Protein backbone atom coordinates (compact mmCIF):
# COMPACT_ATOMS: atom_id res chain seq x y z
CA UNK A 1 0.00 0.00 0.00
CA UNK A 2 1.48 3.34 -1.06
CA UNK A 3 1.61 6.40 1.09
CA UNK A 4 -1.21 8.08 -0.76
CA UNK A 5 -3.42 5.02 -0.42
CA UNK A 6 -2.72 5.09 3.28
CA UNK A 7 -4.03 8.62 3.59
CA UNK A 8 -7.02 7.83 1.44
CA UNK A 9 -7.91 4.84 3.51
CA UNK A 10 -7.98 6.86 6.70
CA UNK A 11 -10.37 9.73 7.01
CA UNK A 12 -7.48 12.06 7.62
CA UNK A 13 -6.49 13.85 4.42
CA UNK A 14 -2.96 14.82 3.46
CA UNK A 15 -3.74 18.41 4.46
CA UNK A 16 -3.53 17.44 8.12
CA UNK A 17 -0.03 16.13 7.57
CA UNK A 18 0.91 19.26 5.65
CA UNK A 19 -0.30 21.43 8.49
CA UNK A 20 1.60 19.50 11.11
CA UNK A 21 4.84 19.59 9.12
CA UNK A 22 4.45 23.30 8.45
CA UNK A 23 3.84 24.12 12.08
CA UNK A 24 7.04 22.37 13.05
CA UNK A 25 9.28 23.83 10.35
CA UNK A 26 7.89 27.33 10.70
CA UNK A 27 8.34 27.33 14.47
CA UNK A 28 11.89 26.14 14.00
CA UNK A 29 12.73 28.74 11.37
CA UNK A 30 11.18 31.54 13.34
CA UNK A 31 13.29 30.75 16.36
CA UNK A 32 11.84 33.80 18.02
CA UNK A 33 12.79 36.01 15.10
CA UNK A 34 9.25 37.31 14.72
CA UNK A 35 9.70 39.14 17.99
CA UNK A 36 12.85 41.01 17.22
CA UNK A 37 14.39 41.70 20.61
CA UNK A 38 12.62 44.42 22.59
CA UNK A 39 15.88 46.07 23.49
CA UNK A 40 16.72 47.19 19.95
CA UNK A 41 14.83 50.52 20.03
CA UNK A 42 16.26 51.36 23.46
CA UNK A 43 19.76 50.38 22.35
CA UNK A 44 19.35 52.60 19.34
CA UNK A 45 18.30 55.53 21.47
CA UNK A 46 21.23 55.11 23.87
CA UNK A 47 23.64 54.90 20.96
CA UNK A 48 22.20 58.05 19.53
CA UNK A 49 22.72 59.86 22.83
CA UNK A 50 26.33 58.73 23.12
CA UNK A 51 27.26 59.66 19.57
CA UNK A 52 25.52 63.00 19.91
CA UNK A 53 27.95 63.93 22.67
CA UNK A 54 30.55 64.17 19.95
CA UNK A 55 28.80 64.64 16.61
CA UNK A 56 25.37 66.01 15.78
CA UNK A 57 23.43 63.26 14.02
CA UNK A 58 19.79 62.55 13.36
CA UNK A 59 17.81 59.47 14.19
CA UNK A 60 17.89 57.88 10.80
CA UNK A 61 21.66 57.99 10.65
CA UNK A 62 21.78 55.15 13.15
CA UNK A 63 20.82 51.68 11.96
CA UNK A 64 20.61 48.73 14.30
CA UNK A 65 19.98 45.32 12.88
CA UNK A 66 20.02 41.86 14.37
CA UNK A 67 20.52 38.92 12.06
CA UNK A 68 19.97 35.36 13.17
CA UNK A 69 22.08 32.76 11.43
CA UNK A 70 22.06 29.04 12.04
CA UNK A 71 23.69 29.04 15.45
CA UNK A 72 24.83 32.57 16.12
CA UNK A 73 23.54 36.12 15.87
CA UNK A 74 25.05 39.19 14.29
CA UNK A 75 24.31 42.58 15.77
CA UNK A 76 24.99 45.13 13.09
CA UNK A 77 25.39 48.79 14.03
CA UNK A 78 25.67 51.30 11.27
CA UNK A 79 26.24 54.97 11.99
CA UNK A 80 26.46 57.19 8.97
CA UNK A 81 27.97 60.63 9.39
CA UNK A 82 26.96 63.45 7.10
CA UNK A 83 29.57 65.25 5.04
CA UNK A 84 29.84 68.31 7.27
CA UNK A 85 30.83 66.30 10.30
CA UNK A 86 33.27 64.44 8.08
CA UNK A 87 35.18 61.93 10.01
CA UNK A 88 34.54 59.28 7.47
CA UNK A 89 32.21 56.37 7.73
CA UNK A 90 31.21 54.03 10.50
Amino acid at each position, binding site marked *: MGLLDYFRST*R*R*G*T*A*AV*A*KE*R*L*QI*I*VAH*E*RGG*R*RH*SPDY*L*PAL*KKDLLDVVRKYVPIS*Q*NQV*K*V*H*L*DRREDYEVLELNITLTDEDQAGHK
Partner: protein
Amino acid sequence: MSKVIVVTSGKGGVGKTTTSASFGTGLAQRGHKTVVIDFDVGLRNLDLIMGCERRVVYDFVNVINNESNLHQTLIKDKRVENLYVLPASQTRDKEALTREGVERVLNELRQSFEYIVCDSPAGIERGALMALYFADEALIVTNPEVSSVRDSDRILGILASRSRRAEQGDEPVKEHLVLARYAPDRANRGDMLSVDDVVEILGIPLLGVIPESQSVLQASNAGVPVILDEQSDAGVAYNDLIDRYLGENRPHRFLTVEKKGFFRRLFRN
Protein backbone atom coordinates in the same frame (compact mmCIF):
# COMPACT_ATOMS: atom_id res chain seq x y z
CA MET B 1 -1.17 60.55 3.28
CA SER B 2 -0.11 58.13 0.61
CA LYS B 3 0.56 54.48 1.27
CA VAL B 4 3.18 52.20 -0.23
CA ILE B 5 1.88 48.63 -0.38
CA VAL B 6 4.09 45.73 -1.46
CA VAL B 7 2.55 42.60 -2.96
CA THR B 8 4.99 39.83 -2.09
CA SER B 9 5.24 36.08 -1.46
CA GLY B 10 8.72 34.63 -1.60
CA LYS B 11 7.57 31.78 -3.80
CA GLY B 12 7.08 32.40 -7.51
CA GLY B 13 3.92 32.03 -9.53
CA VAL B 14 1.45 32.29 -6.66
CA GLY B 15 -0.54 35.26 -8.01
CA LYS B 16 1.37 38.44 -7.04
CA THR B 17 1.04 40.12 -10.42
CA THR B 18 -2.58 39.03 -10.78
CA THR B 19 -3.27 40.47 -7.33
CA SER B 20 -1.28 43.69 -7.90
CA ALA B 21 -3.21 44.40 -11.11
CA SER B 22 -6.61 43.77 -9.55
CA PHE B 23 -5.78 45.53 -6.28
CA GLY B 24 -4.56 48.66 -8.05
CA THR B 25 -7.50 48.63 -10.44
CA GLY B 26 -10.02 48.18 -7.62
CA LEU B 27 -8.62 51.06 -5.58
CA ALA B 28 -8.63 53.35 -8.61
CA GLN B 29 -12.19 52.35 -9.52
CA ARG B 30 -13.24 53.51 -6.08
CA GLY B 31 -11.78 56.93 -6.73
CA HIS B 32 -8.30 56.61 -5.23
CA LYS B 33 -5.44 57.76 -7.38
CA THR B 34 -3.25 54.69 -7.67
CA VAL B 35 -0.04 53.64 -9.38
CA VAL B 36 1.12 50.03 -9.75
CA ILE B 37 4.87 49.55 -10.07
CA ASP B 38 6.44 46.47 -11.63
CA PHE B 39 9.58 45.65 -9.62
CA ASP B 40 10.35 42.51 -11.61
CA VAL B 41 13.44 43.82 -13.42
CA GLY B 42 14.19 41.74 -16.50
CA LEU B 43 10.84 39.95 -16.40
CA ARG B 44 8.31 42.69 -17.09
CA ASN B 45 4.79 41.23 -16.96
CA LEU B 46 2.45 43.59 -15.20
CA ASP B 47 2.03 45.54 -18.46
CA LEU B 48 0.67 42.40 -20.16
CA ILE B 49 -1.72 41.57 -17.35
CA MET B 50 -3.00 45.16 -17.39
CA GLY B 51 -3.15 45.27 -21.17
CA CYS B 52 -0.84 48.23 -21.73
CA GLU B 53 2.24 46.43 -23.10
CA ARG B 54 2.17 48.27 -26.41
CA ARG B 55 2.21 51.65 -24.75
CA VAL B 56 5.46 51.16 -22.83
CA VAL B 57 8.01 53.74 -23.91
CA TYR B 58 10.18 54.32 -20.87
CA ASP B 59 10.47 52.28 -17.67
CA PHE B 60 11.27 52.41 -13.95
CA VAL B 61 15.04 52.20 -14.50
CA ASN B 62 14.94 55.05 -17.03
CA VAL B 63 13.32 57.21 -14.36
CA ILE B 64 15.90 56.19 -11.78
CA ASN B 65 18.71 57.04 -14.19
CA ASN B 66 17.06 60.35 -15.09
CA GLU B 67 16.72 59.26 -18.71
CA SER B 68 13.02 60.06 -18.56
CA ASN B 69 10.71 61.75 -16.10
CA LEU B 70 7.66 60.26 -14.41
CA HIS B 71 5.28 62.21 -16.58
CA GLN B 72 6.75 60.61 -19.71
CA THR B 73 7.00 57.17 -18.17
CA LEU B 74 3.76 56.53 -16.30
CA ILE B 75 1.12 54.80 -18.43
CA LYS B 76 -2.39 56.03 -17.81
CA ASP B 77 -4.93 53.22 -17.89
CA LYS B 78 -7.47 53.50 -20.70
CA ARG B 79 -10.35 51.85 -18.87
CA VAL B 80 -10.11 53.09 -15.32
CA GLU B 81 -9.74 56.68 -14.24
CA ASN B 82 -7.06 57.38 -11.59
CA LEU B 83 -5.00 54.32 -12.54
CA TYR B 84 -1.37 54.36 -13.70
CA VAL B 85 1.30 51.75 -14.38
CA LEU B 86 5.06 52.13 -13.99
CA PRO B 87 6.56 49.31 -16.07
CA ALA B 88 9.68 47.33 -15.16
CA SER B 89 12.84 47.56 -17.15
CA GLN B 90 13.82 44.60 -19.32
CA THR B 91 17.49 45.16 -18.54
CA ARG B 92 19.47 42.17 -17.35
CA ASP B 93 21.40 44.35 -14.93
CA LYS B 94 20.09 43.29 -11.53
CA GLU B 95 21.82 46.27 -9.91
CA ALA B 96 19.72 48.71 -11.90
CA LEU B 97 17.38 49.43 -9.00
CA THR B 98 19.33 51.37 -6.39
CA ARG B 99 17.86 52.09 -3.00
CA GLU B 100 18.44 55.82 -3.42
CA GLY B 101 16.87 55.76 -6.87
CA VAL B 102 13.81 53.82 -5.73
CA GLU B 103 13.41 56.12 -2.74
CA ARG B 104 13.56 59.22 -4.93
CA VAL B 105 10.92 57.88 -7.33
CA LEU B 106 8.63 56.75 -4.49
CA ASN B 107 8.90 60.15 -2.83
CA GLU B 108 7.96 61.82 -6.06
CA LEU B 109 5.00 59.47 -6.52
CA ARG B 110 3.88 60.13 -2.96
CA GLN B 111 3.27 63.75 -3.95
CA SER B 112 0.40 62.86 -6.25
CA PHE B 113 -0.75 59.29 -5.56
CA GLU B 114 -2.82 57.95 -2.71
CA TYR B 115 -1.77 54.34 -3.19
CA ILE B 116 1.51 53.05 -4.56
CA VAL B 117 1.29 49.29 -5.18
CA CYS B 118 4.63 47.49 -5.63
CA ASP B 119 4.47 44.17 -7.50
CA SER B 120 7.44 42.23 -6.12
CA PRO B 121 9.44 39.64 -8.03
CA ALA B 122 9.67 36.16 -6.52
CA GLY B 123 12.53 35.18 -4.24
CA ILE B 124 14.24 36.93 -1.36
CA GLU B 125 17.02 38.53 -3.36
CA ARG B 126 17.74 42.10 -4.26
CA GLY B 127 14.61 42.76 -6.35
CA ALA B 128 12.23 41.44 -3.71
CA LEU B 129 14.09 43.25 -0.93
CA MET B 130 13.93 46.48 -2.89
CA ALA B 131 10.18 46.09 -3.50
CA LEU B 132 9.44 45.65 0.20
CA TYR B 133 12.01 47.99 1.75
CA PHE B 134 9.91 51.18 1.66
CA ALA B 135 6.55 49.49 2.29
CA ASP B 136 4.00 50.76 4.79
CA GLU B 137 1.81 47.70 4.26
CA ALA B 138 2.20 44.28 2.66
CA LEU B 139 -0.14 41.89 0.90
CA ILE B 140 1.29 38.43 1.45
CA VAL B 141 0.04 36.29 -1.42
CA THR B 142 0.01 32.64 -0.43
CA ASN B 143 -1.27 29.45 -2.04
CA PRO B 144 -2.65 26.66 0.17
CA GLU B 145 0.42 24.52 -0.31
CA VAL B 146 3.42 23.75 1.94
CA SER B 147 6.22 25.51 0.11
CA SER B 148 4.20 28.66 -0.47
CA VAL B 149 3.20 28.91 3.19
CA ARG B 150 6.74 28.39 4.36
CA ASP B 151 8.08 31.04 1.97
CA SER B 152 5.40 33.47 3.10
CA ASP B 153 6.57 33.00 6.65
CA ARG B 154 10.12 33.81 5.61
CA ILE B 155 8.96 36.96 3.89
CA LEU B 156 7.14 37.96 7.08
CA GLY B 157 10.44 37.56 8.90
CA ILE B 158 12.17 39.79 6.36
CA LEU B 159 9.46 42.44 6.60
CA ALA B 160 9.91 42.43 10.36
CA SER B 161 13.67 42.83 10.22
CA ARG B 162 14.85 44.33 6.95
CA SER B 163 12.21 46.81 5.85
CA ARG B 164 12.89 50.47 6.41
CA ARG B 165 10.24 50.56 9.10
CA ALA B 166 12.02 47.75 10.94
CA GLU B 167 15.44 49.30 10.54
CA GLN B 168 14.29 52.66 11.80
CA GLY B 169 12.30 51.20 14.66
CA ASP B 170 9.05 52.68 13.31
CA GLU B 171 5.68 51.03 13.57
CA PRO B 172 5.97 47.66 11.77
CA VAL B 173 4.76 47.06 8.22
CA LYS B 174 1.05 46.21 8.34
CA GLU B 175 0.53 42.68 7.03
CA HIS B 176 -2.47 41.29 5.14
CA LEU B 177 -2.90 37.69 4.01
CA VAL B 178 -4.26 37.03 0.51
CA LEU B 179 -4.91 33.33 0.05
CA ALA B 180 -5.00 32.73 -3.69
CA ARG B 181 -5.86 29.74 -5.87
CA TYR B 182 -8.07 28.27 -3.19
CA ALA B 183 -10.12 25.21 -4.05
CA PRO B 184 -12.80 24.81 -1.37
CA ASP B 185 -13.84 21.34 -2.48
CA ARG B 186 -10.31 20.01 -2.09
CA ALA B 187 -9.88 21.74 1.26
CA ASN B 188 -13.15 20.30 2.49
CA ARG B 189 -12.03 16.84 1.46
CA GLY B 190 -8.89 17.31 3.49
CA ASP B 191 -6.64 17.24 0.43
CA MET B 192 -5.63 20.88 0.64
CA LEU B 193 -4.71 23.18 3.51
CA SER B 194 -7.80 25.10 4.56
CA VAL B 195 -8.12 28.85 5.07
CA ASP B 196 -8.09 28.30 8.82
CA ASP B 197 -4.94 26.16 8.63
CA VAL B 198 -3.03 28.84 6.73
CA VAL B 199 -4.27 31.66 8.96
CA GLU B 200 -3.31 29.67 12.03
CA ILE B 201 0.19 28.93 10.76
CA LEU B 202 1.04 32.40 9.48
CA GLY B 203 -0.78 34.29 12.22
CA ILE B 204 -1.64 37.41 10.23
CA PRO B 205 -5.06 38.88 9.44
CA LEU B 206 -6.85 37.47 6.39
CA LEU B 207 -7.71 40.11 3.82
CA GLY B 208 -9.17 37.87 1.15
CA VAL B 209 -9.50 34.41 -0.34
CA ILE B 210 -9.29 34.19 -4.12
CA PRO B 211 -10.64 30.95 -5.55
CA GLU B 212 -8.80 28.93 -8.17
CA SER B 213 -10.57 30.10 -11.29
CA GLN B 214 -10.32 29.79 -15.04
CA SER B 215 -11.39 33.40 -15.29
CA VAL B 216 -7.88 34.45 -14.20
CA LEU B 217 -6.29 32.88 -17.26
CA GLN B 218 -9.00 34.31 -19.51
CA ALA B 219 -8.48 37.76 -18.05
CA SER B 220 -4.74 37.56 -18.58
CA ASN B 221 -5.26 36.37 -22.15
CA ALA B 222 -7.33 39.48 -22.78
CA GLY B 223 -5.08 41.86 -20.83
CA VAL B 224 -7.89 42.86 -18.47
CA PRO B 225 -7.35 42.67 -14.70
CA VAL B 226 -9.71 39.95 -13.48
CA ILE B 227 -11.38 42.33 -11.02
CA LEU B 228 -13.03 43.96 -14.04
CA ASP B 229 -14.73 40.65 -14.86
CA GLU B 230 -17.47 41.22 -12.35
CA GLN B 231 -19.29 38.06 -13.38
CA SER B 232 -16.43 35.79 -12.40
CA ASP B 233 -15.84 34.29 -8.98
CA ALA B 234 -12.25 35.62 -8.85
CA GLY B 235 -13.48 39.07 -9.88
CA VAL B 236 -16.07 39.04 -7.12
CA ALA B 237 -13.47 37.89 -4.61
CA TYR B 238 -11.08 40.70 -5.55
CA ASN B 239 -13.88 43.27 -5.33
CA ASP B 240 -14.76 42.05 -1.84
CA LEU B 241 -11.08 42.20 -0.92
CA ILE B 242 -10.86 45.87 -1.93
CA ASP B 243 -13.98 46.80 0.00
CA ARG B 244 -12.63 44.99 3.03
CA TYR B 245 -9.29 46.74 2.66
CA LEU B 246 -11.09 50.07 2.60
CA GLY B 247 -12.87 49.22 5.83
CA GLU B 248 -16.19 47.78 4.68
CA ASN B 249 -17.57 44.69 6.31
CA ARG B 250 -17.61 41.89 3.72
CA PRO B 251 -17.94 38.29 4.82
CA HIS B 252 -15.53 35.91 3.11
CA ARG B 253 -17.03 33.94 0.24
CA PHE B 254 -15.85 30.92 -1.72
CA LEU B 255 -14.81 29.15 1.45
CA THR B 256 -17.23 26.31 0.95
CA VAL B 257 -18.52 24.55 -2.10
CA GLU B 258 -21.62 26.38 -3.25
CA LYS B 259 -24.69 24.55 -4.42
CA LYS B 260 -24.04 23.89 -8.07
CA GLY B 261 -27.12 25.43 -9.63
CA PHE B 262 -26.90 28.62 -7.66
CA PHE B 263 -23.20 28.91 -8.26
CA ARG B 264 -23.47 28.37 -11.99
CA ARG B 265 -26.23 30.91 -12.34
CA LEU B 266 -24.35 33.61 -10.51
CA PHE B 267 -20.88 33.15 -11.85
CA ARG B 268 -19.27 31.99 -14.98
CA ASN B 269 -16.43 30.01 -13.52
